[in-house]
């Protein structure tokens, strides 16, 4: 029956391409990727929709392709959102335990969380994620579940991701316009991290950098919880734009040159070399200096990493990253990008692959599908949560899940 193996779709509306992933829940509770669709994106800039009609058409194409490969019909999607307007920060809520015996009950915990939710956001901003980190009882840190413990004061740390309501609505509207339901919106960086990181990596401390074409998202996991999230509205598009400006070639050509000859590092080997660019008829028309090309690219990419490193340094996050850095997104395909990141951060760097899900092998180890796969994975958590709620068994399981996401 259709309902017995529900399908879960993740939709990532990216700046250069739109990617849809369809997964199904396995009996063991895992996720199996059965369908994949992608389409060139034309209506998106810096991660946000600027041309709704073009974006809607592209979304439809991506979904249709995914439906065909999966042989299933998508009714609702988990939608990835990003953009310069999104911010993450940590907040703390506390609650004094009123009962005489000072035993902490579920209600006390809920009250503490409610207090943590009372964030002074300006009216146009909405909370996208409120993720429980850990509890403190009378100042004692590192408690994961305080129910049943004793104390006078429960505090809870949460990580809040928020964004501009109207701008979030833009992408939701585009999807709803195609008669598709949006189950939930998920911050793209968070989705990528879910796809790439194993529990051990989350525990040890990892940084996931999603080098998209319109924006770069980064998420820090440590001790199994989300410590830090952020977006930088700079990405591969900027690299192409820099090349077009610096080498004085059209943007489309710059894009192609970046893919064919680009590198994140500018070493001696390219010194003095030139590239002959030919037009669509195969006639050579322009010569560009390979060294210039790589220098422009490497400066831009280095700057992206530096900005992230600065931000994480001020937040005191760099010491947590014992497992290292994982790159995904189209930018992870740039040759030498790991070495550049390793130079900037001084940490081990690897290209991430979706290890926690099974299914289409062609999709799983491609860094640019990480966000969409992560969205489906997020969906699978939600579906299982709902499932266990419906059967009213496994309340403990439910609790751990809701603890992970606090939603």
């Amino acid at each position: 029956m259709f309902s017995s193996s529900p399908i879960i779709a993740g939709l990532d509306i990216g700046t250069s391409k739109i990617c849809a992933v369809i997964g199904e829940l396995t009996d063991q509770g895992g996720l199996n990727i059965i369908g994949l669709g992608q389409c060139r994106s034309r209506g998106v800039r810096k991660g946000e929709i600027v041309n709704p009609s073009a974006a809607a058409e592209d979304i439809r194409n991506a979904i249709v392709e995914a439906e065909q490969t999966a042989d299933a019909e998508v009714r609702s999607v988990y939608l990835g959102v990003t953009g310069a307007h999104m911010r993450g920060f940590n907040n703390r809520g506390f609650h004094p335990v009123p009962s005489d015996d000072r035993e902490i009950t579920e209600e006390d915990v809920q009250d503490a969380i409610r207090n943590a939710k009372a964030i002074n956001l300006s009216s146009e901003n909405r909370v996208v994620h409120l993720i429980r980190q850990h509890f403190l009882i009378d100042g004692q840190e590192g408690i994961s579940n305080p129910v049943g413990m004793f104390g006078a004061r429960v505090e809870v740390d949460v990580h809040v991701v928020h964004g501009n309501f109207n701008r979030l609505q833009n992408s939701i509207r585009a999807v709803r316009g195609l008669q598709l339901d949006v189950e939930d919106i998920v911050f793209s960086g968070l989705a990528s991290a879910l796809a790439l990181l194993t529990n051990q990596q989350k525990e040890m401390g990892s940084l996931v950098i999603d080098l998209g074409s319109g924006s770069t998202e980064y998420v820090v996991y440590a001790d199994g919880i989300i410590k830090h999230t952020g977006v930088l509205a700079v990405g591969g598009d900027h690299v192409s734009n820099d090349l077009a400006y610096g080498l004085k070639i059209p943007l489309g050509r710059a894009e192609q040159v970046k893919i064919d000859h680009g590198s994140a590092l500018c070493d001696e080997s390219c010194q003095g070399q030139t590239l002959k660019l030919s037009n669509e008829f195969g006639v050579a028309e322009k010569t560009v200096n390979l060294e210039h090309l790589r220098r422009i690219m490497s400066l831009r990419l280095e700057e992206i990493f530096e900005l992230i490193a600065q931000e994480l340094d001020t937040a005191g996050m760099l010491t947590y990253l014992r497992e290292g850095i994982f790159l995904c997104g189209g930018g992870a395909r740039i040759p030498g990008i790991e070495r550049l990141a390793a130079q900037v951060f001084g940490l081990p760097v690897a290209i991430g692959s979706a290890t926690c899900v099974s299914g289409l092998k062609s999709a799983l180890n491609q860094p640019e599908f990480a966000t969409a796969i992560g969205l489906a994975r997020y969906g699978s958590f939600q579906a299982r949560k709902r499932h266990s709620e419906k059967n009213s068994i496994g309340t403990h399981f439910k609790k751990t899940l809701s603890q992970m996401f606090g939603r």
Partner: protein
Amino acid sequence: MNTSANPRLTVKLIGVGGAGGNIIQQLQATDLAALPSMIADTNPRALDQWTHPVKVLLGEGRTRGLGSGGDPELGRQAAEDACAAIAEFCKDADLIFVVTGLGGGTGCGAAPVIARIAREANCLALCLATLPFEFEGARRRDQARTGLRDLRLASDAVICLPNQRMTAIFDQNTPVVDAFKLANNLLAQGVRGIWQMLTRPGLVNVDFAYLYSVVRGKNAESAFASAEAFGELRARDVVEKLIGSPLLEEGQLLTQSTDLLVSLVGGADMTIADVNKVMEQLQRRAEHSNIIMGAAIDEAFEGRLCLTVIAARQVSEPAVGIPQPRGTRPATASKTDEFETNFFEAPAPTRGSSRYVAPAPETTPEAAADFLQRQSGRPRKAGAKPKQQTLNLEIVSKGRFEKSEPTIHRGEDLDVPTYVRRGVALN
């Protein structure tokens, strides 16, 4: 320092309620201390904490030593009781600033009465009011709204500062005390700016009549901001700073304004090029508004440039009780399409020669005014769209990001290629 460089103008300040008192107290530390000022509050304990010499306790018998308790009616009655003292203070003043924070009982209740008394004493009453933060709750917000309406009716002009707009300035960790202090500071700056504008001997004079014509009847949407800059490029920087101010919603209010009062104060070294540069930039931002400018010289401003702007936006509901005679805004009316204005202007005053007059007179005058406003609003909005950004001296095309929101990180525009910003030469 000479309090009023313009000898014919006597300016006095009245702070009403807690916020008003705090602002007056803060002004004591500045050169405005020389202006005669007064604090009026219903709360005797609050009055005690201010060291200001002239204080009036409102409603002594009514409040039984307490404040107004957020009740505007009590605040109103209390102010009526103290009518004589206030009238005495207002005597032989030309311009009275009534400074208050709306939302509480004294601000909402007493301030309109005091403004009225000031007007009855033949002064011009100019009110500066803060509106409460959103977190102060719906009741205070509603009360503030009513208070603002009363204030508009009672005074000649109202300039208000919604505190909420300032949340953009604060970061997450701003203490509440600082938030209110900053709000008061801004209002104090506003008082200063306006006072300077009106009293400094100017190269180009602005008098109260101008101010009056700008803020009257459109007060709900009046906003002010001021900025100061030093150094070589001060003429450019000062406008940039002003436009960056959240009080103008990043310059949006400038674009939307219908009237703009600009005051520029500089040292003796202020050149005509400076004035020109500032005005040119402002005009570009606010190409659809009626700009009135003043420029003044003050020795203390040697090497500095201080710019104060009051922007008024036509609101959809015309202020109740203040008649809006035809032709109050000739500048904007003449800018609208010939046809549109004729449509409404023609029928009422002179029933022309034609028998086939458009059926406009059927609507009430208010509705017609409202409609006309909306009509004149539309082309302005459309015109405001292709807003020209400030041009850098070194023009770097941003390529495909030309039209998208710039990515600014610590003052750097990340859309500009990194190698250009870092000055790496490609040879």
